[in-house]
C-alpha cells in the first residue's frame, strides 16, 4: 500500500489568491451568511469567512441543509451563499426545490471533483453529472477554468442572483484550480 505525506493545504499555493477575490465579491454583494461543508478547494475561502466579523459562517452537517439556510436568511432579509464540492450537489437535489418554489436568490460555489487528475476515481460518477444535475434543478451555471476569470465571473453570478431576477446561480470551479493530487479531499 502507498503512503502519502500529509501536506498543509489550507493555504495551498495552488490557490494563489483567488479565494480572496471571491471573498471580496461576496462582501461587495452584502452576503451575510455562508454555509459550507468543508472542501480542500474552499479551504482558504472558508478561513476568510470564519475570520470575517461581518459574515456568519455555518458549517453544515450535510449540504442538504444549505438551501434551507438560504431560504431562512432571505426571509430575515439577509443574503447567503453556499460553498461545497461537487459531490455535495447530489445531496441537495430535493432541498434545492424550496429555492425555486419561493423564488429565493442563491449563489452556490462548487469546487469540482472527478474531472481532472483526481486521485480518487470514486469521485468521477458524481463529478461528471454535477453540471447536468444543477441544470435540471434550475440553476444558472457559470464555469471558471482559470484564475483570471474568477472575479468577473463571480461578480456576474452575484448580479444575476441579486438584482431582481431571484435566480439560483452556481459557479463551478474547475478541478484545474485546485491541486488535489495527493493533497486531500
Amino acid at each position: 500500500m502507498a503512503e502519502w505525506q500529509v501536506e498543509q493545504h489550507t493555504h495551498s499555493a495552488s490557490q494563489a489568491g483567488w479565494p480572496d477575490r471571491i471573498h471580496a465579491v461576496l462582501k461587495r454583494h452584502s452576503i451575510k451568511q455562508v454555509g459550507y461543508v468543508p472542501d480542500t478547494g474552499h479551504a482558504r475561502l472558508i478561513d476568510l469567512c470564519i475570520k470575517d466579523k461581518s459574515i456568519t459562517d455555518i458549517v453544515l452537517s450535510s449540504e442538504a441543509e444549505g438551501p434551507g439556510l438560504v431560504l431562512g436568511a432571505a426571509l430575515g432579509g439577509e443574503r447567503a451563499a453556499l460553498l461545497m464540492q461537487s459531490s455535495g450537489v447530489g445531496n441537495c437535489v430535493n432541498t434545492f426545490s424550496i429555492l425555486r418554489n419561493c423564488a429565493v436568490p442563491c449563489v452556490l460555489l462548487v469546487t469540482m471533483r472527478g474531472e481532472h487528475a483526481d486521485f480518487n476515481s470514486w469521485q468521477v460518477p458524481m463529478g461528471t453529472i454535477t453540471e447536468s444535475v444543477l441544470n435540471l434543478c434550475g440553476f444558472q451555471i457559470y464555469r471558471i477554468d482559470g484564475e483570471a476569470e474568477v472575479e468577473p465571473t463571480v461578480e456576474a453570478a452575484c448580479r444575476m442572483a441579486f438584482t431582481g431576477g431571484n435566480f439560483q446561480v452556481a459557479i463551478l470551479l474547475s478541478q484545474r484550480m485546485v491541486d488535489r493530487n495527493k493533497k486531500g479531499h
Partner: protein
Amino acid sequence: MTVDRRKLVAELLEKRGGLLVITGIGSATYDVAACGDDARNFYIWSGLGCTPSVGLGLALARPDRRVAVITGDGDVLMALGSLATIGIKQPKNLSIVCLDNGHYSATGMQPSATSAGIDLAAAAAACRFRVESVDDLSHAAELRMLLHSGEGPLFIHARVDADDQKRIIPSRDGPAIKQRFMQALWRRG
C-alpha cells in the same frame, strides 16, 4: 400519555406577539394553519428535513426576533444532522417544537423511527439543545413563555396523538407567502 396536537399548537401560539413560525411540510403545517392564517407564518411545502435549517437561517438573520420551527418527527428524523449544525451556532432565539406522533400521518400513518424507541429529545439534548418534554396541556403556558423569552436553542418534544385530523390547507404560493412574511417583518421592524 399523549396530547392533542391541535390544542397544544393553539396554546403555544396564543398571544404570540412577534413570534415568527416556520412550519414543516405535512401535518404540522395544517396544525398551525388551523390556528388561523397569519403573515408571521411561513409554510414549507417541499424538502422534508429542511425546516430546522430554515429556522436557523432566519434566527441568525434576525437575532432580535423569536423564531419557532413547528414540525413533525418525520421532518426532524430527516434533519438529525441539522440539530448538530444548530447546536454549534447556539442561536438563543430559536426553538423547535417537534410534534412527535411516531408516525407519518400525512402519508397513511406508517410508523416512524420514534415508534421503535428512537428518542428525538435525547438526540436534541446531545446536540446541545435545551429540551422540554410535554405530553399534556398542563404546562402549555410555561412552554409558551419559553418560546417567547427562554434561552435557546430550545427543543420542545411533544408526544402527540397519532390521529389524522382534518387538513387545513394554507397558501401554497411560495413567492406570495415569502413576500407577505417579509413585509410583516419590515412593518414591525
